[in-house]
């Protein structure tokens, strides 16, 4: 099956117009020597065959487990209306709204998305989306380096290790000096941090809640950072912003994060949504597309892509970023999701996550040999210390039908017995109790 409408006659007529005898002639600029040495692709199949085959493959993934794994990527419910909207042809089969007059729907939707991100993070301006939370953090760091002309980056080890690893990868060929701040009792060590901040510091990067689920108020850090003319960058979890103090309230200059929790399916790692918002002074350093409101020749309000002189298609090697295609459709998901929930719905969502996690904590705390880490408050994820290696426990729990959490030993030396547990609004009391009971059994034997 192919999607080509051309009949033999069509092709004949078109070749005549072009003035060539055959389609091959159109490829005559390709030297014989460069013809493919092989092209062993299986022959085409019917829609039924491919759909069937891939449906069978999908059944080889087990999504039946009751999920308590988060680690920055969460199993939230997605209202059906979100899917309905993003499957509108006029949204998903369009491309970047370069031509505003025939793209007002997209442009307004992105403007609304930007506004929502600003509201969530408490900052002034947002861009139209970046690839994911990790690349967004990288872009934020580069902004700080450009803005300050410095190259020392202080990063808390409570920042998701996946993201830290990405930063190291992206900068391996650049001269950036990283200092990692240890986490003490689940929180960023102020002592260490304050020691390191100096006038060579371009930015301090923190995460809230941090990777261990711990909530912090970084206000003190931020003011210290600003004293030295450095920027403060926060990586945040948007659902938590239905409850937690915002980056804006803490004084951060830049907020970034992974938007997956806002109506985007887990989908085995992507497509996701990198968001970024900044103080307005930084807008011309911001990467990515930005939509702005303006008026048409009749004075009627409309929306356009703006401040494009930051971007690669105009500034080329001098652009603030190389990003071109972004994650617009995921940004639309986030906009629809948040609009649907509204102010009160988002609060409720955060509340349910917080309360269910607290409930799970209490239940787990009753388990023999299990220590729930409570040195600092948490949102919907927390760490527990097990009497033995978490890996094995995880394995046994899988057999009982639970993805029971993320073993911290995988990322942190000396934490082999630690388990990171996420509890979202989807987890019912019944599931949580069964989960605790099963864990009890596993630890018993």
């Amino acid at each position, binding site marked *: 099956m192919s999607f080509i409408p051309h009949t033999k006659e069509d092709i004949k007529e078109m070749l005549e117009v072009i003035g060539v005898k055959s389609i091959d002639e159109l490829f005559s600029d390709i030297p014989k020597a460069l013809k493919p040495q092989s*092209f062993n692709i299986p022959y085409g199949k019917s829609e039924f065959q491919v759909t069937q085959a891939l449906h069978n493959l999908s059944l080889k993934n087990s999504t039946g487990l009751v999920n308590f794994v988060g680690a920055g990527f969460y*199993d939230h419910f997605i209202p059906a209306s979100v899917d309905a909207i993003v499957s509108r042809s006029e949204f998903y089969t369009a491309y970047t709204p370069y031509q505003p007059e025939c793209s007002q729907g997209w442009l307004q939707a992105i403007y609304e998305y930007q506004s929502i991100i600003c509201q969530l993070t408490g900052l002034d301006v947002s861009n139209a989306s970046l690839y994911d939370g990790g690349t967004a953090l990288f872009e934020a760091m580069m902004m700080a380096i450009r803005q300050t002309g410095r190259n020392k980056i202080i990063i808390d080890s409570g920042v998701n290790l996946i993201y830290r690893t990405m930063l190291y990868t992206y900068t391996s060929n650049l001269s950036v000096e990283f200092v990692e701040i240890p986490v003490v009792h689940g929180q960023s060590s102020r002592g260490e941090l304050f020691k390191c901040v100096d006038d060579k510091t371009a930015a301090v990067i923190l995460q809230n809640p941090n990777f261990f689920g711990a909530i912090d108020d970084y206000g003190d850090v931020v003011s210290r950072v600003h004293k030295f003319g450095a920027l403060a960058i926060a990586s945040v979890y948007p659902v938590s912003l239905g409850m937690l103090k915002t980056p804006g309230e803490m004084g951060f200059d830049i907020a970034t994060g992974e938007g997956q929790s806002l109506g985007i399916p887990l989908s085995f790692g992507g497509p996701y949504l990198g968001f970024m918002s900044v103080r307005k002074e930084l807008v011309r350093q911001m990467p990515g597309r930005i939509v702005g409101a303006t008026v048409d020749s009749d004075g009627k309000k409309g929306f356009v892509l703006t401040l494009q002189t930051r971007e690669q298609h105009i500034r080329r090697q001098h652009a603030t970023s190389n990003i071109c295609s972004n994650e617009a459709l995921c940004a639309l998901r986030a906009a629809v999701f948040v609009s649907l929930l509204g102010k009160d719905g988002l609060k409720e969502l955060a509340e349910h996550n917080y309360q269910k996690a607290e409930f799970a904590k209490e239940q787990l705390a009753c388990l023999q040999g299990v220590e729930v880490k409570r040195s600092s408050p948490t949102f919907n994820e927390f760490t527990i210390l097990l009497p033995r290696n978490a890996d094995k426990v995880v394995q046994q729990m899988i057999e009982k039908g639970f993805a029971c959490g993320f073993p911290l030993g995988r990322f942190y030396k000396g934490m082999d017995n630690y388990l990171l547990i996420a509890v979202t609004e989807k987890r019912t009391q019944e599931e949580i109790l069964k989960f605790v009971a099963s864990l009890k059994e596993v630890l018993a034997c």
Partner: protein
Amino acid sequence: MLIFEKHKEGRRGFSYGVLDVAASKALPAKYCRAAAACLPCLSELDVVRHYTNLSRLNFSVDTNFYPLGSCTMKYNPKFTEKVAGFDGFSQLHPLLPQLSGGGALAQGSLEVLYEAEKLLCEITGMSAFTLQPMAGAHGELTGVMLIAAYHKDKGSRRKYIIVPDSSHGTNPSSATIAGYEVKVIPTGADGYMDLVEYEKQLTADVAAVMLTCPDTLGIFNPKIKEITDMAHKVGALMYYDGANLNAMLGKCRPGDIGFDVVHLNLHKTFATPHGGGGPGAGPVGVSAGLVEFLPISRVILRGDGTYALNYNYPKSIGYIAPFYGNFGVILKAYAYILLLGKEGLIRAAEIAVLNANYCQAKLKNYYDLAFDKKCMHECVFSAMRQVKNGVHALDIAKYLIDKGYHPPTIYFPLIVKEALMIEPTETESKETIDAFVDTMIEIARLAVENPLLVKQAPVSMPIKRLDEVRAARQPDLCWKP
């Protein structure tokens, strides 16, 4: 009207119902936001109506011909959406296979990744692929980082990357962000990269040459092999920007030409929807010498027939994405390749090229061709002839909108004055192209007889031309309470 302006305090569009656990004490105030975010409160109907009506203000492939050059706006098969929606794929947590004993939980998705990589290798003639880059430009950045890792490993310190002046903006930008300086080679009068200048610039401290092939003029450079060999002679690597691969499917493989690093745009060549700007996917393929540097994780097939994630590549550049790339997009492209198969892919390239040349042949008497040559998947005109009457590429674009066509790419490539870059793609019928061509010819006529009419366009849209200067001078970038 903004959705924020439809807000009504106390309205609910969605509710999570009653909390089914005993509520514990609230979080201490110092950790909580002082005021709730000012988010719009609407009913579900009003949210659905708002966004449904917004969607109706867009042109899209499903509703309009969309010959946006360099973007390959081909038809996005519906069945791929269905496939990506299967619970087994869409609800899988990416960390499951990273749990001990979790490998068994994701065999289906791992197989998709493994098989997709194999297919892309065969299509491009490269040795291995990373599927992690989340768009073309991200692929470029990844590719250049691989190039840097390669040279570093060889102990050779190089600081330049060469790009032609016709290149896409992401190329020089990606090079810079990866830490290189950019050398730009002009395009000669014949439309090809100036080889004399190229040879001059191709010094021993050049790390790589980034080319698009066919290039952004839609032209295949017959000297491409020489260009490649010259670079290799000075120890530079060749980077292939695969944005235009649609013209090459089964016709010519970058690997066979001698390219060392290749990025693809699955959302172009492999028909995944552009989603209003993304998500896309920009897998990067490499030649044998660079495989060891690819990002981790990589998917391997084990002796027992199961698939696994392998992190054990000491020379890997590391993580460039949190997981395995835009899996949902990769999956759609994989389904598309399976459906078309060998003959279908080749046919796609042939008809894409046929459509572009047909378009070019029919319009060349009315618009100036950037370079009068056979083209590949797209043709590039200049509106300079029309400019004489004050009608610019932008005006032509706006008039096309009134006629129900999404305009071609305009003002790119930058080396072509008043560029109009037309890429019909293979999924558009002769009838559609004929009708579009007739409109373009009418515009050429109007440019002479009634230029004002063209310059006033569009008049049939909900809005007229927008004041972009004002947008930039007095930025209004988000709603404020």
